[in-house]
């Protein structure tokens, strides 16, 4: 072993002992700290600060979850922090697995609205700082020749998100954002798909019917317009397909859910 490798190993060992104290309370690093009498007091500033900072990050990303969880928020946050040490440079992404954690970890898995709210708010966050793109307009579509329409492939806007929820947490989210008192969260008989879009840098959301959600989902898989219309006819019937296609496309254009189009070969 060269001298520099040995020195680097020394630093790495020290850093691991320091980190072990912060994450697991392992006291081995206390021998390394100057001033033995107060070593634990000093190290505890780091150990106490770690979960506090992550909890603050979660509270920033999940104000709706904090509102519906109430006093339980800190407890569920600390459980997530203990189960999922950060491996990320950027705190922006630390909460990415919270919905999955809440859905699969008792006692929070007994309250599906918690995982639902986390799923909804994470999708809002993704939409909030997604790549910028100009939304597709009716005027832009007006320039497409009739012969090209069957080959059209619509491209969703990068900020567009779809999320299926088993509770009406978006209503609770809106109430907390307005500073209103929260009504009890209602459970849906079947999962409700929600469309999240960004217009004028503002994230918006609305519920979709199951057929609209299926149609939008199919459109986002680069199906050609001809294919999509064919499948739409199977879904809503030949007689209704054209009217339904126009209605939904107009709605998605108004939502800003689409960013552009391409022509299939």
């Amino acid at each position, binding site marked *: 072993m060269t001298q520099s490798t040995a020195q680097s190993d020394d630093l*790495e060992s020290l850093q691991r002992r320091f980190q072990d104290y912060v994450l697991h309370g392992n006291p081995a690093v206390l021998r390394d700290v100057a001033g033995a009498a107060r070593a634990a007091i*000093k190290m505890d500033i780091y150990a106490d600060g770690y979960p506090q900072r992550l909890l603050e990050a979660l509270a920033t990303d999940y104000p709706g979850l904090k509102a519906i969880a109430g006093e339980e928020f800190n407890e569920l946050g600390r459980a997530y922090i203990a189960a999922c040490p950060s491996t990320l440079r950027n705190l922006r992404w630390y909460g990415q697995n919270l919905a999955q954690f809440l859905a699969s970890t008792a006692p929070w898995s007994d309250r599906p609205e918690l995982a639902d709210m986390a799923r909804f708010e994470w999708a809002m966050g993704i939409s909030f700082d997604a790549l910028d793109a100009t939304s597709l307009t009716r005027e832009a579509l007006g320039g497409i020749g009739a012969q090209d329409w069957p080959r059209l492939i619509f491209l969703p806007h990068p900020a567009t998100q779809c999320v299926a929820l088993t509770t009406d947490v978006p209503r609770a989210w809106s109430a907390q954002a307005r500073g209103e008192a929260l009504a009890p969260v209602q459970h849906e008989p079947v999962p409700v798909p929600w469309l999240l879009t960004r217009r004028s840098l503002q994230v918006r959301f609305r519920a979709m019917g199951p057929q609209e959600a299926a149609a939008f989902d199919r459109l986002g898989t680069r199906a050609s317009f001809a294919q999509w219309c064919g499948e739409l006819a199977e879904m809503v019937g030949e007689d209704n397909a054209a009217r339904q296609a126009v209605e939904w496309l107009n709605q998605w254009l108004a939502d800003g859910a689409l960013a552009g189009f391409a022509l299939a070969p």
Partner: protein
Amino acid sequence: MSLGFGLGLRPPHYSQVAETRPDVGWFEVISENFMVAGGRPLNWLERIRADYPIALHGVSLSIGSTDPLDEQHLIALQRLARRVQPAWISDHLCWTGVAGNNLHDLLPLPYTEAVLAHVVERVRRVQDRLGCRILLENVSTYAGYASSQLTEWEFVTEVAQRADCLILLDVNNVYVNSVNHDFDPLAYLEAIPVARVRQIHLAGHQLRPDGLIVDTHDSPVSEPVWRLYEHARRRFGDVPTMIERDAQIPPLQELLGELERARSIAERIDLESRTQRTPRAA
């Protein structure tokens, strides 16, 4: 010419800054907050950048870690720098995690020759990668190491000299550490090479009942730090100076008031310096 007096740009003030264009020389932003694809944060940043110089200040370079430098982080930083064209790029002389973890804190390094060599080599690589010299900030520390062989100011100085990087001198952190580790903060300032100091930070802290001070950035700059800033201004001259507030963020007007105090201190010190340099009439 110095950029003068700046503020840390924080979300509660974005719209007011963009709309009222306050009398501030420049703004510093936390780099990681803008390492996103698009949307409102970058939109605000670009609007404000149109009116003000911007400094990029990172919190997760982890220059002192024994983990490899994070390639993705450097790519994101380069991309942001291309977009913002910052006045300079800074981060902290510390480590933030090891073995793939990140504690999201500015953690202390032992001040030894071996650690010095480790850090210097990594600073050089980052500077080569970014194509510019970076500023490294002295951090507040609560624990020090029995193995340290150098003082903190010797370590900071040696990193800057050997890696040919610049120093972001946080006067609050010098004061915090002088209390936590019982040294003379003036001796610290006197030891830092003037030519390396490119920026000064001022911030608030909290004194705990046990006598330790925690660097909280949640309150106004304290009186001892203002006094230390006077010494810093005398020694380092017209260095761009800014106030950081990251918690309990007050109205912008309050921060502008604090910044005014920094300006008036600087004007008084500068006037004193000019008076002392002016030869007396015979």
